[in-house]
């Protein structure tokens, strides 16, 4: 893994290298070099498989983190590349030119987070949310519960319990624990 760190550091000025395990490495790159870096990882370092693309909403930092997870099948190692895009203008370069499958992930991210990937095929088409009119539901400022209650005719009489106390009460009604 060290040579991966080395290459990412020297060629793409990678930062925040985190070796989660011996075979799993995370690194943070600038958005500008991401595509080149992924291409380099794919073509030079053998990370041929795009495992997934996912995003995290860091609402406090006003950032979206996009993570690209790649796998090298010969060495059985994974690399996760993180980039950060501003929440106010969430646009990221599309990598469907490197992996065609990326288009689907990007479409999903576009729908769920509102991150745009210009040029990605069918990126504006609804994926699972047909006719969604609110802000993207995975953004943390979207109030799911309120939306559901307003929209989906909740059946009255639902009770909610705290799982821990409820299970305790169910399993040990007399209060003894051991």
């Amino acid at each position: 893994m060290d040579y991966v760190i080395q290459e990412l550091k020297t060629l793409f000025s990678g930062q925040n290298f985190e070796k989660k395990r011996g075979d799993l490495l995370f690194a943070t790159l600038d958005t500008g070099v991401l595509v080149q870096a992924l291409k380099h990882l794919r073509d030079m370092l053998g990370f041929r498989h795009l495992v997934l693309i996912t995003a995290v909403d860091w609402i406090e930092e006003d950032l979206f983190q996009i993570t690209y997870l790649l796998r090298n099948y010969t060495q059985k190692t994974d690399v996760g590349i993180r980039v950060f895009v501003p929440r106010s203008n969430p646009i990221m370069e599309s990598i469907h030119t490197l992996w065609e499958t990326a288009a689907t992930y990007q479409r999903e991210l576009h729908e769920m987070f509102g991150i745009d990937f210009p040029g990605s095929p069918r990126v504006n088409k609804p994926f699972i949310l047909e006719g969604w009119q609110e802000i993207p539901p995975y953004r943390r400022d979207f109030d799911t519960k309120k939306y559901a209650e307003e929209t989906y005719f909740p059946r009255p009489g639902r009770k909610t319990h705290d799982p821990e106390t409820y299970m305790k009460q169910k399993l040990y009604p007399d209060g003894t624990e051991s």
Partner: protein
Amino acid sequence: MSNDDLKKRRVIGPDGIEFEVNPMEDYFCTERPHPESPANRILEKFFNWARSESVWILGYGTGCGAIEMRPLMTPRFDAYRFGIQWRPTPRQANLLMVSGYLSVKTLKRVIRSYEQMQNPKFVMALGSCTINGGMYWDSYNTINRLDHYLPVDVYVAGCMPRPESILAGLEELKKRIRAGKGEGANAYIENLDWYKANQKKIIKDWDMPDYNW
């Protein structure tokens, strides 16, 4: 599926004359359905018996509960002996079995399939999700109460209900049919406006005719 192919469009015929095609009217029947009255009492009793003993299920799995329907056909549960069979097309099925949570997207398909079934038709809903949303009650995309969108004859509670409970539910359904209470199809049509309003409230891109014949 986008709405583009439902918009009116201008086409040029083979003889060069341009005209307008309105897919909503040209390709879909826009007639409003009407309730079907039962036959006379004695005959209807016989018919109801036949209907109850020959329930054809639309094999359509919406959620996790679909996996519980398979064992019904196995030697262990063998629903066939109750006159229950599976049909692959809604046109020939009598019972729509909604097997679990419905997202907005699947609900649209369920509505279509339901409307394509013929009168009399029954709905059986499995699992807590169809009753009150179950564990997905506060999801941004999962409906809570199926009976706001379709007339449900029988609910089978559980998460998920085991095949035994489904069989019990089917027995219950048969009783209802024999008692002449299986009139969900007519109820749906009589209250069509209410159902449609509910459906349209959550299906924002309503890209089909009001009633899918």
